[in-house]
């Protein structure tokens, strides 16, 4: 689904929505919007071949988990359009990016803005950690490291069936600490799964802080290449570079784009909180007010009136 906005404008819109949400709720996954907005904007606004949403703009309430007794169960994948062979599929592997992903759905006209008001509310399907039934989600990925394997299985199956649609996985760099990520890449190489694409938000951050202080992962581009992927490393805030990376030839191998990003890109005041950026909760009303003024100025909007 295309609209008149540029991808840069979509990325800015994502950040504004996440900022507003975080100010109103006294905290949120702000740094993920800083690092990943271009990637998600690019995927939804340019790169993915998706059909029109099949689910209502305002998300339905939680409809129960999958079970033999829940005949009406469906995932949130309908926000990405129907499962036709020609269409692409997308998994958001780090499910804690859900807030940013929901903002992306709104900015690309796939979900109503009211959807974000339901975020993390009891009885809502718009969950804080994206669940299968949350808008835009198709599988549970809250346990980090399983997304690429699931994508690999889906891509392999679609390739066997001759479906032209691609399978994309949005990943986070912390996932390279999980052994399963490497198992997935070696399996893709062994089975020639080249209709699988990943773009990884390499922001060097994880829950405990900077990755280098938690577990050093070394040169992951070389590691991915050695395990059998085609890997391209780019500036994750440079849309032209991301576009070029996606065109890299990768016959017989999955393509993994490492998008090197800053966790405070466009919200410079966040650097004050480094290295604990995973989830930013304001420690005082004074801090909240200072962040409000500073980020609003960075994003070119008025400060949020969060008292009302």
């Amino acid at each position: 689904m295309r609209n008149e906005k540029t991808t840069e404008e979509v990325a800015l819109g994502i950040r504004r929505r996440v900022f507003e949400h975080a100010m109103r709720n006294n905290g949120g996954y702000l740094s993920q919007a800083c690092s990943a907005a271009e990637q998600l904007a690019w995927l939804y606004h340019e790169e993915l071949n998706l059909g029109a949403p099949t689910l209502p703009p305002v998300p339905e309430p939680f409809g129960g988990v999958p079970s033999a007794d829940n005949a009406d169960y469906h995932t949130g994948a309908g926000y990405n359009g129907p499962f036709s062979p020609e269409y692409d599929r997308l998994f958001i592997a780090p499910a804690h990016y859900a807030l940013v992903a929901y903002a992306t759905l709104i900015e690309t006209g796939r979900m109503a803005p009211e959807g974000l008001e339901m975020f993390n509310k009891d009885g809502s399907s718009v969950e804080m950690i994206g669940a299968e039934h949350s808008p835009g989600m198709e599988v549970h990925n809250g346990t980090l490291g399983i997304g690429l394997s699931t994508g690999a299985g889906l891509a392999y199956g679609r390739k066997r069936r001759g479906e032209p649609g691609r399978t994309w996985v949005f990943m986070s760099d912390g996932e390279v600490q999980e052994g399963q990520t490497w198992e997935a890449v070696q399996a893709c190489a062994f089975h020639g799964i080249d209709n699988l694409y990943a773009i990884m938000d390499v922001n060097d951050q994880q829950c405990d802080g900077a990755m280098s202080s938690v577990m050093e992962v070394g040169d992951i581009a070389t590691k991915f290449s050695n395990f059998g992927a085609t890997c391209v490393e780019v500036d994750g805030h440079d849309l032209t570079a991301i576009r070029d990376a996606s065109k890299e030839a990768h016959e017989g191998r999955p393509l993994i784009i490492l998008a090197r990003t800053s966790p405070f890109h466009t919200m410079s005041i966040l650097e004050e909180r480094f290295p604990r950026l995973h989830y930013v909760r304001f420690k005082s009303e004074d801090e909240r007010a200072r962040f409000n003024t500073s980020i609003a100025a960075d994003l070119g909007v008025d400060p949020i009136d969060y008292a009302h």
Partner: protein
Amino acid sequence: MVDMVSRPYATAFEKFAGGNPDILCLSADLTSSCEIDGFRDRYPDQFVSMGMAEQNMLSFAGGLGLAGFRPFIHTFGVFMYRRPYDQLMASIAYPRRKVRLMGFLPGVTTPGGMTHQSIEDISVMRSIPNMSILETGDATEVESICEAADSIDGPVWCRVLRGSVPRLFDTPIKVGEMRVLSEGTDILVVTSGISTEEALRARSALAQAGLSIRHIHLHTIKPFDHKQLLDHIGSVKHGVVTLENHVTEGGIGSLVAETMADAGIGKRLIRLGLKDTYAHGGSRPYLMRYYGLDALALVRGIERLMEQEFGISEDDLDATRVDDVHSLVKAEAL
């Protein structure tokens, strides 16, 4: 002497899956050990080697399910749930993927010791929402396990016997049912898997002791027909003895106990199996004797329930089978 069938799974899987484009055969480096080497050679296009990487294999299978395939995963049971439990839960069980988990070497059917013996898998699987559980106790059940498993709308855990397997039954598994092997009125004996053969070894000795045994064999552990079990319990005077190739916590002993407690049944229950212990490596008859899983253990359990000794010794029981450790019907000594 019981009729023995060589490698029934090999034949049955190939017959069931060969040429079906929606079924894929996944293996984690235990292809001949799980008797799918012939299938690999004759249906290479349906065979997907996943290497020794079970975490990826389970999530990958979930992805295949999403693409409309019905993957049959083959490896030793322990390797399919202990390390990749998170993947089993998130990628297969929660979304109800039609993944058929073929777990070989159930319980003490292997001399491989703790790392190879799945002694608590039924307990684990029973507590997973959306999971079904089947267990094979003879060659006929092994021959029908693929069709039975593939009839289930969701994931299914199967305990599969391999190598030389006795034929005890002449009808295939019917999912959701139980086999009534005798209809006595004194004591209900409930067994599954290889424990059933042990109970049959004790049958004539118990009859000669004047005991009227009602014996049921469970191939379907989940879903479970509680009402039918209660009817059987209601048909015996003294109580119930369960015998399983599994720890007594969470397996069929627990299943029977829960059914009785939920219905307020006040009869006695003796649960036989691994009693809060790991096993070690050894032959099957040795392990079943050592850990109290064999025919003699069942007799002693019945004596305990009846608070009476019947003078039955090993000599009074039907002969046990002793498989060769190194046999042509197994890929390795495991």
